[in-house]
């Protein structure tokens, strides 16, 4: 989930077709040289199978984590193939980059990276079926038409289903990609329709779908205990006591080889030391684990605490920054000329992904080969990690991708996969490793905490002329901790003439990594809250002030970092209109706040209506979202669900989520002390998609970032207290706290 890169490579199509069980099996690969690194071509492909009974099986290439791509990607193929969705069966692909190319759930990239190719897969198959009909009937292709999975010839009244034609089609010449004509969007019958997820019937009846549901003959169950101080080694453990527990088969210490270089999560990713307990049920393994009485070796990061990080950050802010990341104009000189100035410091905590399905993986090692069933967002990285850690050839590892009970970036890391592989090999039986919730919350790759020390100035005409951010984050030397960096193009860079972004780093012994809308999920809070402070200082309406800041620019900068100010103005005005901004009389204790943010190529503006009680309790009543993700929403049902879920997820983060480090370890343990938002606190979320003439982009992430500052700004409007630190602390919002 690093920053999305949206090259639009010119792709040469390579198509393979063959007969499969009497039907047509089509594999379409394209060589995307522009997309490849170091001049190596990268193949992207997808499969369609048509059976004689007319059933069309479409393989979903990417991992499904709840973002809906197992449905929306096959919809693209089905549309151009010209079948009815009711004829389609969706099948989840295994990890196989040689056939499918990039199989990743991350960065909201599934839609933009597959939109062209997958429609061409469908169009190719359709062209071959047309060809088959025209050859069979001796009629020109141009006189034949397709609809609902059949070819017809109007003049002769002939008609044949795809099922009848598929055997012949498999022998037809594969059309030149240049000859393919894609549908006019006005003719779409599947794309743009709200379609329920392909797995819905299985989800509502409780069929085994998830990694945790995998069961193999002779399978054992494992727990794996790692040090609370990250990467500390095992000094001693009472293995015999664990083995004496009924049902326990094995208990052993894992001393991993040195970690694979270049892993996404840095040195704390991959296989870490610990103790495995393997038993005939997970409950027995857990009982065995409770007897281990592990003593952990000393570890240098055992002194780290969240409170010290706060102190350290304040000290760094008082000193000259270590580095400058961006400088436009002369901030210091401009600030002197400002008629209104604001200075403020913002902070946000580490937070956890807390996927509802805890990390787990099932592995079977036989005859030197490894077979893995895993809920993973990045299976190929997992395969490489397992291969290098266990000393296996990547080709000897098969990975089946299960449905994931949530992802949010957590399952980009495959630490649980390499643990399961190691334990299965050492156990001589297939093993399902399952983490407890406590393991999961205490061994995450957290959204890094961060601190921003901001100064800004507005000129007498109400224009923002000076902005400086001293960003204190985590890392060592020049190296940011994973996901702790800030893009120097981040708004309002390029929109403020005198701008400076400085940075200083604090060393960290806690694993970090991308969490849904990485970077953005924190930076939007800081930037859009501080903009509100500046608007207030300039006595300007928050929306008017923002419109002025966006100016009358169109596209600012160049791809991949381009920012379309016009698209942002569009969503901002739409959100103002939807919410009745400035036209609604609000009761005492209620307030509206606004914010916008651009990430993952999507433009989002959101307005929150919230109230603050005399006890400082915050209630979010309604959120209005205006979104611009281009000209086409592939599946409006999934799209709306993603946006509503992202918005409530953001509110949940803002209201309750915080991971605290003490003595080098995570304090929080489970949902009792790491509260997620629940039904009574879920607001209504009204969403409008503006259709603009740009290619469609993804929706798994970009709706989240603006809701956090929109809520903070609404709280200010409601009670006059500025939220500068997350999560929101009700005690700070009480009238008594205000007076103090």
């Amino acid at each position, binding site marked *: 989930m690093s920053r999305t890169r949206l090259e639009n490579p010119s792709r040469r199509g390579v198509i393979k077709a063959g007969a499969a069980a009497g039907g047509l099996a089509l594999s379409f690969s394209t060589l995307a040289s522009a997309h490849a690194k170091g001049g190596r071509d990268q193949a992207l492909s997808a499969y369609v199978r048509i059976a004689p009974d007319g059933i069309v099986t479409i393989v979903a290439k990417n991992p499904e984590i709840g973002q809906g791509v197992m449905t929306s990607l096959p919809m693209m193929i089905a549309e151009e193939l010209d079948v009815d969705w009711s004829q389609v069966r969706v099948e989840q692909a295994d990890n196989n980059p040689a056939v499918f190319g990039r199989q990743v759930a991350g960065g909201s990239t599934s839609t933009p990276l597959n939109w062209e190719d997958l429609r061409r897969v469908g169009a190719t198959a359709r062209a071959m079926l047309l060809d088959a009909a025209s050859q069979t009937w001796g009629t020109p292709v141009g006189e034949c038409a397709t609809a609902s999975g059949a070819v017809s010839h109007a003049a002769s009244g002939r008609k044949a289903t795809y099922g009848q034609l598929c055997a012949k089609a498999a022998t037809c010449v594969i059309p030149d990609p240049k000859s393919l004509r894609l549908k006019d969007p006005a003719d779409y019958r599947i794309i743009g329709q709200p379609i329920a997820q392909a797995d819905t019937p299985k*989800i509502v009846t*409780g069929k085994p779908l998830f990694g945790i549901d995998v069961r193999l003959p002779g399978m054992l169950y494992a727990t794996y205990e790692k040090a609370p101080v990250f990467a500390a080694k095992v000094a001693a453990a009472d293995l015999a006591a664990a083995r004496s527990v009924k049902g326990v088969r094995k208990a052993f210490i894992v001393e991993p080889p040195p970690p694979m270089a270049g892993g996404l999560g840095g040195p704390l990713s991959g296989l870490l030391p610990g103790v495995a307990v393997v038993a005939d049920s997970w409950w027995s393994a857990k009982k065995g684990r409770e007897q281990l009485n592990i003593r952990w070796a000393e570890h240098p990061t055992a002194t780290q605490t969240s409170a010290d990080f706060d102190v350290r950050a304040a000290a760094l802010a008082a000193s000259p920054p270590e580095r400058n990341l961006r400088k436009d104009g002369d901030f210091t000189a401009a600030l002197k000329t400002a008629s209104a100035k604001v200075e403020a410091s913002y902070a946000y905590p580490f937070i956890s992904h807390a996927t509802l399905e805890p990390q787990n993986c099932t592995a079977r090692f036989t005859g030197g080969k490894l077979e893995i069933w895993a809920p993973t967002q990045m299976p190929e990285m997992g395969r490489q990690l397992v291969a290098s850690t266990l000393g296996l050839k990547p080709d000897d590892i098969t990975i089946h991708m299960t449905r994931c009970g949530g992802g949010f970036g957590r399952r980009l890391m495959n630490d649980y996969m390499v643990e399961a592989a190691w334990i299965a090999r050492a156990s001589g039986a297939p093993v399902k490793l399952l983490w407890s919730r406590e393991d999961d919350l205490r061994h995450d790759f957290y959204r890094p905490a961060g601190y921003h020390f901001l100064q800004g100035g507005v000129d007498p005409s109400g224009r923002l002329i000076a902005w400086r951010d001293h960003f204190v984050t985590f890392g060592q030397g020049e190296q940011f901790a994973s996901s702790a960096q800030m893009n120097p193009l981040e708004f309002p860079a390029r929109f403020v003439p005198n701008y400076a972004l400085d940075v200083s780093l604090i060393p960290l012994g806690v694993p970090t990594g991308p969490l849904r809308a990485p970077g953005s999920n924190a930076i939007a809070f800081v930037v859009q809250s501080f903009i509100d402070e500046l608007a207030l200082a300039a006595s300007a309406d928050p929306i008017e002030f923002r419109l002025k800041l966006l100016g009358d620019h169109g596209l600012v900068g160049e791809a991949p970092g381009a920012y379309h100010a016009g698209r942002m103005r569009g969503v901002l005005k739409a959100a103002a209109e939807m919410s009745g901004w400035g036209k609604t009389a609000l009761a005492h204790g209620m307030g509206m706040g606004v914010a916008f943010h651009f990430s993952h190529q999507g433009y989002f503006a959101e307005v929150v209506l919230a109230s603050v009680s005399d006890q400082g309790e915050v209630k979010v009543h309604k959120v209005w979202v205006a979104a611009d993700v281009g000209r086409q929403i592939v599946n409006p049902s999934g799209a709306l*669900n993603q946006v509503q879920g992202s918005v409530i997820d953001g509110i*949940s983060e803002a209201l309750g989520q915080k991971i605290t480090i003490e003595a080098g370890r995570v304090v929080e343990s489970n*949902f*009792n002390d790491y509260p997620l938002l629940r039904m009574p606190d879920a607001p209504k979320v009204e969403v409008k998609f503006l259709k603009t003439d740009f290619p469609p982009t993804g929706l798994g992430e970009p709706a989240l970032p603006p809701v956090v500052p929109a809520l903070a700004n609404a709280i200010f409007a409601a009670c006059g207290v500025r939220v500068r630190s997350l999560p929101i602390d009700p005690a700070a919002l009480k009238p008594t706290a205000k007076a103090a």
Partner: protein
Amino acid sequence: MGYRLIINGKSYDADVDGEMPLLWAMRDALGIVGPKYGCGIGYCGACTVHMDGVSVRSCQVPVSAIGPARITTIEGVGAGDVGRRVQAAWSALDVAQCGYCQAGQIMSATALIAANPKPSDADIDAAMAGNLCRCATYVRIRAAIKLASGQPQEA
């Protein structure tokens, strides 16, 4: 040895320790994996099943405490009229994102409507507060409960 359990109208012999929570007896010993593990401390509701029609967190119920009670899980809830309507509403409104919490949500919603055929928003809040949805599909869960109970849904 072991415990006789009646789950979804079928009788099972679970050869497990009495202190083993029903959730693990079902998932690991009996292969009934619809009920999910999310927290193990009664805070998420992913493991929700019915004991004689009442919602319980199966991670909190030791097998020894079940006795003759009849257990219903997501695999069997569709055999009843309310359960079938709730499942249909969940499908019609495409409630799920990842889907992991939804077995528990459907079980809680079914118990709610069985006891209270036309639940108000406040009733829904109270009955569903124990079921976390990490993907935050709450807007659709509420709408699906309204649909299943024959009440108008708000947008």
